[in-house]
């Protein structure tokens, strides 16, 4: 016999706020929010009084003032007459540059080392273990300093390249010079019509994408497999090379040459950039290697065996069965490693690379005395970057999540 018993209809008592689980959570939250608000108010009041005591105000107007300092590496136009805001922009672009370069090299290194560490070759596996453990267990700062010291102390001086019996020589067909002032690489010169060349190259990329889609669709419908790899390769190279000669070689390279005491004419990759870039790549690469290894090991052996039982060859097993499943495990931690790399690029301070922390969070703060505003903007930049990337990661995670019932 099912009877519905009404709860005892006594009036609300104050003690229910503490002892009744229906109301207790409310009490806890009210008390917590009171404490949080009191804490925030305390900090806020302190800031206001301290600013008054120091005779400062809270104002972002300094971003429009003349910066008055030089930045040795810039991706956009900048001189010491530009504003602090412009300097911050240069710094942000430098941060993003080294993060971008670092992510690419770290991924390549990480995948290589991760796969090699699973190799059946004992020696290679052990070598990769040494690399991974060495970089994971030693502070990044030390690696940055070591690579910077290698560049500045062990590389030859520009004057060593001079004369008949020079003690140093340029590498890669006399195109790249490794000196203690940085690495000099050839600079491209964009002649007339080079825009068309770039357009042809981009179009061929679109064509590759379209062809792959078409081939995939055709395989789904008819079962016929087109030679996707070779056609893609051809599409990648042939149109651009044809266009390059048809247009009369619009793009040429300007090689660095020794002039006076230094090289001129190429692009100078400064030691600070090289050290930061390589150290970040090697360090993050070691972490990515472990992620890749874990991802591959996470796929159970049964998957490989089942694929073999279906008659798939080893390379198709890898690309069609193992990799798609491993990527689901690999990608989220991989992206958080990219985030770590971006945040670690703030260690640029160790080698004097002009990233956003050095311009906005360093020289600008020192010159204007706006610590509060500068650090706030700096924090917001890093925060926004990581929130955007982790937001994108969540979208991706949801799209590859196993569709379970």
């Amino acid at each position, binding site marked *: 016999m099912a009877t519905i018993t009404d709860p005892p209809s006594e009036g609300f008592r104050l003690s229910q706020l*503490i*002892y009744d689980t229906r109301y207790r*959570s409310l009490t*806890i*939250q009210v008390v*917590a*929010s009171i404490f*949080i608000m009191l804490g925030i108010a305390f*900090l806020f009041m*302190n*800031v206001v*009084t*301290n*600013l008054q*005591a120091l005779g400062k105000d809270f104002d972002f107007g300094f971003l429009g003032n003349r910066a008055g300092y030089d930045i040795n590496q810039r991706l956009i136009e900048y001189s010491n007459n530009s504003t602090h805001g412009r300097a911050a922009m240069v710094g942000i672009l430098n941060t993003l540059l080294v993060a971008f370069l670092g992510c690419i090299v770290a991924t390549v290194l990480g995948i290589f080392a991760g796969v090699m560490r699973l*190799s*059946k*070759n*004992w*020696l*290679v596996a052990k*070598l990769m273990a040494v690399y991974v*453990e*060495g970089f*994971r*267990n*030693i*502070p*990044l*700062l*030390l690696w940055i*300093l*070591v690579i910077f*010291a290698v560049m500045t*102390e062990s590389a030859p001086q520009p004057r060593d390249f001079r004369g008949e019996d020079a003690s140093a020589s340029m590498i890669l067909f006399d195109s790249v010079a490794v000196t203690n002032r940085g690495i000099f690489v050839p600079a491209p010169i964009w002649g007339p019509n080079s825009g068309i060349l770039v357009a042809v190259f981009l179009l061929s990329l679109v064509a590759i994408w379209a062809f792959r889609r078409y081939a995939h669709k055709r395989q789904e419908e008819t079962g016929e497999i087109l030679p996707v790899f070779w056609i893609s390769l051809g599409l990648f190279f042939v149109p651009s090379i044809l266009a390059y000669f048809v247009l009369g070689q619009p793009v040429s390279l300007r090689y660095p040459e020794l002039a006076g005491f230094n090289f001129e004419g190429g692009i100078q990759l400064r030691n600070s950039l090289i050290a930061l870039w390589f150290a970040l790549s090697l360090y993050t690469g070691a972490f990515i290697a472990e992620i890749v290894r874990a991802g591959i090991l996470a796929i159970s052996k049964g998957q490989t065996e089942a694929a073999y039982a279906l008659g798939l060859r080893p390379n198709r097993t890898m690309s069609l069965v193992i990799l798609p499943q491993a990527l689901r495990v690999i990608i989220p931690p991989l992206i958080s490693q990219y985030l770590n790399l971006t*945040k*670690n690029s*703030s*260690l640029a*301070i*160790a080698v004097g690379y002009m990233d956003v*922390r050095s311009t906005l*969070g360093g020289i600008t*703060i020192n010159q204007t005395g706006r*610590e*509060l505003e500068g*650090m706030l903007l*700096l*924090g917001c930049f*890093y*925060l926004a*970057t*990581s*929130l955007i990337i982790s937001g994108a990661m969540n979208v991706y995670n949801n799209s590859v999540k196993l569709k379970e019932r």
Partner: protein
Amino acid sequence: MSEVHAQTVAYVRDTMIPQEAPPPTEAGAIKWLRENLFSSWLNAILTVVSLYVIYWVVSHVAGWMLFGIWDAGSLSECREVRDATYGEGASVACWAVLTDRWDQLMFGFYPSELYWRPVLALVLFLVAIAPVLYDSLPRKMLWFTAASPFVLFFLLWGGTIWGPLAVAAGFAIGWAVLRFATPVIGDLGGIVAAFVVPILYWFFAVGPIAGALGNAIPIGIEFVPSDDFGGFMLAFVIGIAGIILSLPLGILLALGRQSDLFIINKFSVIFIEVIRGVPLIVWLFTASLLLNYFLPPGTNFDLMLRVIIMVTLFSAAYLAEVVRGGLAALPRGQYEGADSLGLDYWQSMRLIILPQALKISIPGIVSTFIGLFKDTTLVVFIGLLDPIGLSNAIRATTDWNGIYWELFIFIGLCFFVCCYAMSQYSQWLERKLRTDHR
């Protein structure tokens, strides 16, 4: 069948042939080499390339390291010894910088007659941490573990003994309140009082009490200010303090993030995301440049304490995410089982959920700790003299101007040993706690 064969086959063996050793290519070292190094053309090439890499590194580094000079007072003296022993311009390491500046690399500018204090503190720390790491040790040792923070603080900083004692008394007061006031004012009131009374005591009573006792009965050892701390001692103090403080905070934040209570949940999420979104170095600069803005005018406290607080908050946010992963990985049935046993929230967390969730997250927790310990090197940028800061200072002196690799190798090796030991311990712990029967 066999009878048919008996007539058709000319010869049938009727005794077993004696067992023979396997062919030389299928046994011993040769088999191992064939399987592990030369199983295919690609593998053979890889092996040869690896051998060449190893040869190249060893031929460049081994002699330089092994024939290094250990006894000299400066880099120029080192070079004189080298020229006399190995001839002009030979490439050998000058390890003498380590012997010459050993004290500085280890202790910074800690007064040299007091070196026994940090050394004793390290030994006591190892004794205190041992029963936490290995549960085969007697449980009574945990009492010393509980007392060790105060003992270590007293040994490292010195000063009057009454300060640490007065702070430690706060915990005794809290326990006493919980024990004796609970029967009078009820469970909840007892717990609240056990938190509030010690906090009030620490804020308002510790200073005067310690001061009065220090004046009345002056017992103490020489005070050493934080500015004198440096070298690996500094890295250890910051690292260990950060590790010990961040674990409970990280667990609380993870619970907050999993909580159903809206305010607590949102507060935890914002705290974790803001801390994780910004690099540690920016937080350290905030601690050194901005903290004075957020404190009442006139307060000024130790830079090292600020760094420890920042490092703790930073790694607590990372730990919270790791522990949250562990909490999320537990099957829902564990939560429901705890509820159905009638356990309240804290009981179910303490007895059922956290032991399992923490076990799952051991690798992540330890790698966060390793990250924290490595990050202690960043304090060099706000003017503390950690090993890297000291290596710069040593290089700035005329004696050792221009020495790089020896210092870098030594510092790197020390960090490697500590971090590798931590990761090995975590793997051992994982194996020990594994309960699936594989």
